[in-house]
């Protein structure tokens, strides 16, 4: 909706009406647990010849998913670590040639599409050569090990008009699609803060098949535990935060302006080089609600500030010795809170001035007693009172399989507008790496100039 030549108050009123209608309709839809739609892309269609480079844990996951999709025809797999190659070959099945050199694989198997699931430091090189060979590319997140690599890769993809997708699978996840729709239609009101975390309880260390200290251990340790060493990895920010910061970029519709951060190796002091815990505060400049279309809460936005961009702060933390609330994002708006995980979303309505609690659906009895007894204070003092009964968002499909389906669909149609293109990959790489830079420098870091869409 454009507000340019129309009386703003009229627009507001119209927006308000639209929103109410939507809320009414969508509330009915959401009530009683909403099962979101199945995969966006079609199961059937012309076959695509796919090769997979990197057949460790993630690569094997992708091979297994590809073998459940009829339109994917696996033509080759590649890994230069024999046990991983064997594992990949087992899942790919007999008759799929296995290579240890991706260049030879590209030359001999002539795939239409290449899936890159190698350690991070190899992404850029392999993606560029696959593009050079005329292939479409699916590159696991994070897109690149450095912002410079990501900028170059994105430019090459654009110049070639290639089909390129980054493996940020929440882009294909129905819970997050629904979340985006709810944000865009104003169900959360104005978003004022987001809290993201990926908290786990493990050492992030993979076993090495020969005892420590024996000949060859060091090389294998670096190969298998590449995530722990700076030469190959960008640590927790690249491996975990990338998924969640992409959700934030998507929901806020922009990239962060700056970040403050702290982190270190404080618990798992086992020779690793990347932080075992990080804490970041990102700052986003978000356009004023009116410019972002209909439906954003009115009465809760102070009138004097309603027209200028405002700052949303986003906290991100990742720790590895406590798994409370796991991997999740909490999107906080003036009208409600949206708690998101890969398999479920929960929407808690906020008690706001123009929305007295007793008018809310499903809470008539409970609140009627509050009204008659006048004991609202009791509820307000309860730290859980604002939560109420959440609306649930469910998904019934696997997002990794869905992102592959969407990719194959783009390849078959030769459509470069994938669900997570190189520009998104570049934004994401820059977003997470500025976090690492802030940890390293101990000072406020701005969004890197070379990653900007219009570098000034």
């Amino acid at each position, binding site marked *: 909706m454009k507000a340019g030549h129309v009386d703003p108050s009229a627009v507001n009123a119209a927006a308000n009406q639209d929103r109410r209608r939507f809320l009414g309709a969508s509330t009915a839809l959401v009530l009683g647990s909403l099962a979101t739609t199945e995969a966006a892309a079609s199961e059937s269609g012309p076959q695509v010849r796919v090769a997979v480079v990197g057949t460790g844990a993630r690569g094997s996951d992708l091979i297994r998913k590809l*073998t459940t999709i009829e339109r994917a025809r696996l033509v080759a797999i590649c890994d230069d670590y024999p046990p991983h190659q064997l594992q990949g070959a087992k899942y790919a099945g007999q008759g799929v040639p296995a290579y240890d050199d991706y260049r030879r694989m590209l030359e001999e198997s002539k795939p239409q599409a290449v899936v890159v699931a190698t350690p991070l430091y190899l992404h850029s090189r392999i993606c560029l050569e696959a593009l050079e060979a005329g292939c479409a590319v699916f590159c696991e997140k994070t897109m690149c090990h450095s912002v410079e690599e990501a900028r170059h890769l994105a430019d090459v993809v654009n110049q070639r008009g290639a089909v390129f997708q980054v493996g940020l699978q929440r882009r294909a996840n129905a819970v997050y699609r629904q979340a985006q729709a709810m944000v865009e239609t104003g169900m959360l009101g104005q978003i004022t803060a987001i809290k993201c975390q990926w908290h786990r309880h493990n050492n992030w*260390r993979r076993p090495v098949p020969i005892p420590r200290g024996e000949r060859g251990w060091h090389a294998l340790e670096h190969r298998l535990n590449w995530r722990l060493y700076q030469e190959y990895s960008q640590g927790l920010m690249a491996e975990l935060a990338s998924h969640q910061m992409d959700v934030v970029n998507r929901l806020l519709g922009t990239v962060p302006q700056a970040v403050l951060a702290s982190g270190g190796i404080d618990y798992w002091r086992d020779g690793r080089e990347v932080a075992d815990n990080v804490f970041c505060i990102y700052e986003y400049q978000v356009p004023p609600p009116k410019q972002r279309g209909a439906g954003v809460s009115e009465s809760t936005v102070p009138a004097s500030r309603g027209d200028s961009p405002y700052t949303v702060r986003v906290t991100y933390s990742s720790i590895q010795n406590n798994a409370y609330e796991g991997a999740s994002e909490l999107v906080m708006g003036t009208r409600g809170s949206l708690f998101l995980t890969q*398999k479920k979303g929960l929407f808690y309505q906020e008690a706001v001035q123009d929305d007295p609690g007793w008018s809310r659906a499903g809470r008539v009895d409970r609140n009627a007693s509050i009204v008659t007894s006048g004991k609202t204070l009791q509820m307000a003092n309860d730290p859980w009172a604002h939560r109420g009964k959440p609306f649930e968002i*469910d998904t019934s499909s696997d997002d990794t399989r869905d992102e592959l389906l969407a990719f194959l669909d783009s390849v078959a149609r030769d459509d470069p507008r994938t669900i997570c293109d190189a520009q998104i990959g570049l934004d994401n790489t820059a977003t997470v790496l500025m976090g690492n830079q802030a940890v390293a420098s101990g000072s406020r870091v701005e969004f890197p100039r070379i990653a900007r869409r219009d570098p000034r």
Partner: protein
Amino acid sequence: MPDAQHPAFQPLRPIRGRSIPDVEIRDVAFQGGKNREHETRDGRGRGEHQIVCRRPAMGTMFEFLLQGADPEHLAAVGEAMLDEVTRLDQLLSRFDPTSEIARLNRRAALEPTPVDRELFEILLDCQSRCRQTDGYFDVTYASPPIGGVRGPQGFDQRVRLDAATRSVFFLTPGTLLDLGGYGKGYALDAASELLAEFAVEHALLHGGTSSVLARGSGPDPQGWPVGLRGGQVGELTLHPRADDANDSVKLPLRLINRSLSSSAVFHAGSAVESDLVEPHTQTPLATAAACSVIAPTATDAEVWSTGLLAMGRRRAETLAATWLDFGPRTPQAVYWLQEQCGQITCRLLGREARP
């Protein structure tokens, strides 16, 4: 580890119904109620350590005890094993709508649905296990009855597996695959493969204490001590509702490179209800009884303890007495526990000729 000497210290106790029978793993002080943790303790061997790691999966708790020289290595292997269990849970869970089994349960009645090689192998195995046990181990047990059909209603009547397209097709609408029990055994076996790959010689693994897998002998050359609670070999009787003090291990067993699984139907009113069904009549099993099987793999033990229990003692006894040739899958011992006149009897139904 918490400081047990501290005046405010109180040990956490597992919140779990005490019911019989159950496999108790001795020699390990399990502490429930926590999400997961690693513990390191001195093993009995020289320079040996033991670590315990655990994670909830498949509707229960998986717990692994690993023994070896390098605790950091053991922790990494344990973590990889737990990740493997989580992966299989996401593949096989009927209750997780994003799992492959859930996808099959939604789609396979509409059209032949391709699955990955691993799941196809698993389903082929389930098919052959169903035939081997005369239909008494059946992963389609939860499906509604096929209308207007007399005669057997099992895996073969409900599911068609096509090897050429690696696809699964449900012949009758409403068919439901439930690999709950099978999955637990399969997950333990898969986790145990990682022990071999990463050279851990001694370990004891269990899923929900009803399935146990032993690798090596543990600290004692005689084997990992594992016991059945509430029964004893032969016809010795016990008090069914004995308190903890009396309800100690009644059937002491030693496991070396073997698996043990227990399936049970509890009496009416028991805190734990069984979801076992007689697959031919689709009625829940009613007689309180339990069947414990020692077998070469956890999958074997799981399949046979379920299948034998479902077929009832008489059939199980006949089968165990004349072990058909199932090759390496043949159970090594079968124990039957049953309640009679308010007391529990435990009996060895069959044992392999050559131990």
